[in-house]
Each structure stands twice: as C-alpha cells, then as structure tokens.
C-alpha cells in the first residue's frame, strides 16, 4: 500500500507506539489522585508540557492538552469569544479554514458575533491589506491557519502577527495542525496568542491535541467538571497519549529540516507529472507546504478517482477528511475562485517520511492509467 493521506493522519513512529504501550501499562493511576501513583502520572504530564514549551520555544504561556486539533480550535475560538465578548463582538477568520474553525465561527455568528471571512487569492493566500481593512476597534480575535489542509497554501503568519501588534485588543489564533513539524514556527516572536496542534498529524497517537495560550489570557472552558489543565479542560488526562504525543512532537521537530529537504523535490516531481496530464489541473500555488499537492479532474467525480487509485494500492483523499463524506464542491476550492466543476473534482495527495522517489513514480503511473481509463467516460459520469 502506498499511503498518500498524511494530511488526514500519519503512521505513528515505532518509538511512540512503544512509549504509549509502556506508559499505558505502568502509569494507569489518575493524575489528579493525591497518592504517589497519581502524582507520578501527573509529573509525566508536566514533563510532556515542559517538552512542548522547550521544543516550541515558548517561555510565557501555557500548553493545554486536549482531545485533538478540533477541540483545540473550538476551545481557543469559543474560549476567547465567550470570555471577552464584553470587549467587542467582531471576529475575523478566512474562507479556507478547516471545518473545526469555520463551523465554530458560524456557530458564534448564531450567538450574536459578527464574523468577517477573509477571501483568498487564486493561489490560496489572504492579502494582509484586506485583513487590515477588516480590523475594527471591536475585533477581539483573528484566526488564521498556517498551512491549509486541502491545498497546502502557507499564510503569512509572521506578517499578520506584526500587523496585529498594533491592535492589542485583537488576539491572534493560529491553527497550526498541518504545520507543526513541517515548518518552523516562532510563536512568541511572531506575536501568536493561541496556537492549535494535533498529535496524530505528526506521527503521534490519535486523541491528543495541544493548545498554546499566552500568559494572562483566560479561556472560557468548553467543559465543566474538574480543574485539570489549569481549569481550561475538565476531564481525566490521557496520560499515555500525552506522553507519546510529546515524544512524537520532539521526534518530528528533530527531523523538520531534513523532512523539508527530502519532500520538496518529491513535490516538484509530482507537480511535473501532473502538469504532463492535460486532463488534470493543479490547485493552489506557492508559498505552499512541501507535503501537500492538490489537483482537480474537472467534470469527474473525485470519489471515482480515489477508488480507482485504490485498485493500484494507492490511498489518496478528496478534500479534508473531516468533510469528505458530503459530496458538495469544496468550500476551499470555491474560495480560490475556480469553476464549480473544478471545485467538485479535487483530489489531495499528501505524503510523509516513508515516501521515496519511486513511490512518486508509482503514483504518477497509476494516475496516468486512471485518467486513460476515465477519459472516454468523462461526460457520462458527471
């Protein structure tokens, strides 16, 4: 099997699985218990937290463990909106956010907040001037993703942070679920107030997310019923998952530069292959992540392509896994301004550490073959 769906989830590191198993077996006490077994488990969580702070170079904030990227995004956005609604009721995000951000803002609109959804260019990038125009003295939150999960475009987080320094009332949240371990992030230097991550996107276990919250920010919690995670998230912590996630984070940050160096040429190669197939159109443009490629077969149902690739042992994806079960055209692609046909026919390929040049060749061959087979049926399948 060639697994090309790293944006949806990644194969865990061997060592991470081992950690998970050992901690699960030996550290089963509740980390909130007062006895030694409990405090030992608690120290493991604190050591994990310290590891995150050290490796992501934060000195003046706290790291909160959650159940995943979706919860981190929900907690950050709702937590800020509900806590600081008294300061203003205007929020800003983009049209191409992951559903866990986008739908959360939609829900807040129902609660009476006004939300600006910034448009993006054809390449999938917001324009900083448009953000500046949207900011008002009522804006309390700006949420922009780092790497887009469908097309891989990289947003100018550093410049946004610099701009927002002039708007002290507006807090800055970054959904970095796709970028931790892929791109360098300077949380404090860039003026980021909140940052979401997810362990299973960086070869850690599922069920663990993290959220950085700058010092002196208070979040309105999503859950009630316990004072875990500095009172931000009630519920017994997932000790083995958290420790294993810290390890996965360390390992993927250790190999960040090497990963970029390895993946960039692979992406270039795949772009060449796809550009050589006239039926396919590439979506998005640089600056973009080295591990994501997105293309459309306009007029073709993407599910058909996915299933035909599957017959070649290749796992690719339509749009975001979180919204791949509905068959509407992709909201992200529509935001790029592509045609309805192209937006409905998107395929995402995302690769990881295990892939080599010959895997890209195999994918290329399979793609050519699939397109050959489908071409005669183009009109009938739509």
């Amino acid at each position, binding site marked *: 099997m060639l697994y090309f769906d790293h944006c949806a989830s990644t194969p865990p590191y061997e*060592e991470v699985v081992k*950690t998970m198993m*050992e*901690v699960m077996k030996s*550290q089963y006490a509740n980390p909130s218990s*007062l006895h*030694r077994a409990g*405090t*030992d488990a608690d*120290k*493991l969580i*604190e*050591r*994990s937290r*310290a*590891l995150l702070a050290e490796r992501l170079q934060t000195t003046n904030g706290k790291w909160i463990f959650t159940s995943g990227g979706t919860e981190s995004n929900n907690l950050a956005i709702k937590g800020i909106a509900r806590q600081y609604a008294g300061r203003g009721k205007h929020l800003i995000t983009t049209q191409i956010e992951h559903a866990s951000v986008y739908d959360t803002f939609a829900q807040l609109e129902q609660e009476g907040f006004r939300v600006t959804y910034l448009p993006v260019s054809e390449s999938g990038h917001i324009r900083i001037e448009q953000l500046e125009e949207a900011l008002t003295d009522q804006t309390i939150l700006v949420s922009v993703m780092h790497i887009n999960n469908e097309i891989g475009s990289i947003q100018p987080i550093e410049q946004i942070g610099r701009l927002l320094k002039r708007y002290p009332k507006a807090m800055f949240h970054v959904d970095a679920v796709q970028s931790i371990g892929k791109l360098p992030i300077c949380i404090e230097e860039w003026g980021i107030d909140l940052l979401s991550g997810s362990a299973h996107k960086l070869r850690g276990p599922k069920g663990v997310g993290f959220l950085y919250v700058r010092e002196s920010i208070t979040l309105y919690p999503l859950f009630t019923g316990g004072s875990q995670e500095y009172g931000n998230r009630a519920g017994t912590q997932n000790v083995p998952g958290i*420790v*294993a996630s*810290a*390890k996965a984070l*360390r390992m993927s940050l250790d190999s960040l530069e090497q990963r970029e160096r390895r993946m960039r040429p692979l992406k270039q190669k795949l772009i060449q292959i796809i550009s050589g197939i006239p039926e396919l159109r590439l979506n998005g443009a640089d600056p973009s992540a080295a591990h994501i490629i997105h293309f459309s077969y306009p007029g073709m149902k993407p599910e058909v392509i996915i299933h035909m690739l599957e017959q070649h042992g290749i796992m690719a994806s339509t749009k975001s896994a979180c919204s791949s079960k509905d068959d509407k055209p992709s909201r992200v692609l529509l935001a790029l301004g592509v045609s309805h046909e192209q937006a409905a026919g998107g395929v995402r390929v995302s690769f990881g550490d295990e892939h080599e040049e010959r895997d890209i060749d195999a994918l290329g061959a399979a793609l050519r073959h699939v397109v050959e087979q489908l071409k005669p049926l183009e009109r009938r399948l739509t």
Partner: protein
Amino acid sequence: MVKGRNRNRFEKRMLDQVKQALISYENIAYFKSFGRLYVKLNGHPYEPVADRLKDLFGIVSLSPVRSTEPELEKIRAAALAIMQALPEQPATFKVSAKRAWKKFPHNSQEMNHLVGGHVLRAMPELKVNVSKPEIELRVDIQEEATYVYYDVIPGAGGFPFASNGKAMLLLSGGIDSPVAGWLALRKGLEIEAVHFHSYPFTSEQAKDKVIELAKRLSYFSGEPIKLHLVPFTEIQTTLVGAKSDNLIITLMRRAMLRITEQLAERNGAFGIVTGESLGQVASQTLPSMNVIGRATELPQLKPLIMMDKHEIIRLAERIGTYETSILPYEDCCTLFLPKSPTTNPNLRIAEKIEALIPNYKQLLTAAVEGTEQLMISPVAETAVQTAGEDSWF
C-alpha cells in the same frame, strides 16, 4: 566600591564566578582592567550572555563594548556606530576618553574633541553636555585595543558569592524565605538551606517545591546549594501534645532554631537567615521574636524585617520564585495552627514547657541526625524533569 586589600580578593572571586556562569560558552575570553571585567564574546550572541551576567552578584553595571584597533579613524567609526544604534536617540552626550596607553598620539582631552566632533558632524541634532549628558560615551585606549562603550544595564549589585562567609537559611516554601535567601546571597553570603518537613502531614510536593526554590537560588549564586531536609514530625506532634495551643508556634520556631544551630555548627556557618518581617504574623511581633530568638546564640539575619508584604512580593516576582512559592502545598509551618496564637509569649513559660517535655534534647538530636542533605545545582533536574523513563520522551 570596595577599597584596599579586599578588592583584589573580590575581583578574583568575581572572575571565577563569571567564568562559572558562562561555562557553557566555549572560547569566551576574559581579562580584568581597572575594576572592569571584559568578556570577549568571540562570536557568541550578546543577549543571552548579558541576561546571565545581569543576575550575577557583584556586578554594578554591564555594557556592550565595541573593541577596535587603537587608530583614530577606527575609534571614530566605532563611536558613531554605537551612537547611531542607540534604541532611543538622546538629546545630549559627551565623550570621556581615557588614554591608558601613553604612546597613543592624542591625549584624553584631545580625543574627547576628536571623537565628539566626528559624532556631532554626522548627527547634527545632538548637543554636548559635559555636566549631565544623557549618554556618556567612553573610549578606553589600551595598547592592544580600544574599547568604546556606554553604561547601560544595571547589574544585580552586591558582593561576589561567598565573599562574606556562610549562614544557614530557613527555607519554608513560602514567599518570604526565598527572597531573604536572595538578599543574603546578594550581600555575598554563602548559604545552606534548611527545610523542615512533617511527612505525612506535609506532602512530597512540598519537598519538590523547596527543591525548586533552592535551585532558583543556586542560579543566582552560580554555585550548588546544600539543602538540609529535617524530619520534624516527631517534634511537632510532641509539641502539639504539650497542650499549650497558643504557644505552639513559638515552641516550634525555637526548636527549629536549635536544630539549625546544630546544623550550622556541623557545616561551618556563622548565622541564621530567616524571612521574618515585623508584624506579619503572630510569631513575627517583636515580643515573639524576642522569645523565639533566645533559643540560639547565633546572629540572626532578617533581611525582610522592615519590608512591606507587597515589596517582598515584587522582589519574589523579579527573582522568579513567586510562582513556585504560591503553589498550594502545605508546609509544616501552617500545620496545627491554633485559633489564636499569642503575639506576646512568655519566655519563662515557654522554657518551662520545654523542660517538661521528656527527651526534648534527644528529639532535637534525632532530627539533626535524621536530616537528609541534597546538593541542588542550578542545572539540577527537578522531579518533573526526571519523571518516568527517559526513553518515553
């Protein structure tokens, strides 16, 4: 400024201390000259080194220095570069040149004009003010190099570590005692910390907390600190059994001083530092301190005695102990608190109660014997840092 023969000793200590603090930076060079210590970075970034040195005791101020060859044009260029790189442009300045290398062609007075004039031509909005300049640009001309700088960052002040002898610090885990320890270190005292624990009435976390505080203090001294962990349960429960509730704190504190005195003797210390502040609690009124203090003949140093709580808290925040101090783990001082502790204890009654406790002396000796010693270094790993197996992380 320290005068006479002490000065050499202090400067030597200072150099050792700076070297120790910067030990992780390879090929940094050091040399002393006229009460100044020069640290040649040799490519290391300035900021982290300055941050570390700022916290070292015995340093009055530190300055980033440009070194250049002792040639007029190069000195002028260095001076101008410094002036133009100031974070905020001053309105006035002056140049204070010092020609230590007498073969340099221009004397100090001439250099003031030659360098000052050059800066003025390039920055015409500046004015010279000889008596009260905003920036005093110093030019130190030596044979091997010229140093151009201005005083910027105030140092922590005080004396180099251990230049004034050794004392025991009563370290409870609260807000005050770490601050008292920091002030003692600043005055050049070497300290050994003494902590009393009453397991199982106090928890493991209370001990971890004290280790963390001692670690923070050792960061400032740059040297490991010895931490004495005294088992106090027996004594404390015995005193509770003596049934004079309102005197219990007085009796506890007297026992602590006696134990500390014995520890001081064994470790060559000549005083006891405490975090007491006048009137803060019942045991810190003058009548209380009188009765408590008589339990030891050693000098008791109380650097916080006349400070207000908010001043102490501000210092605790500045030295980075506050966050640890307010962790909610009970220490033995807050156990068995009576409803109304006396603010005016009677010495004779206290002595009488102690005399009636069977084996009082033996209990103290047993506590001293049972004391556990830990060496806490600035790089010592905490309980969190060593949690679990290293291979898990």
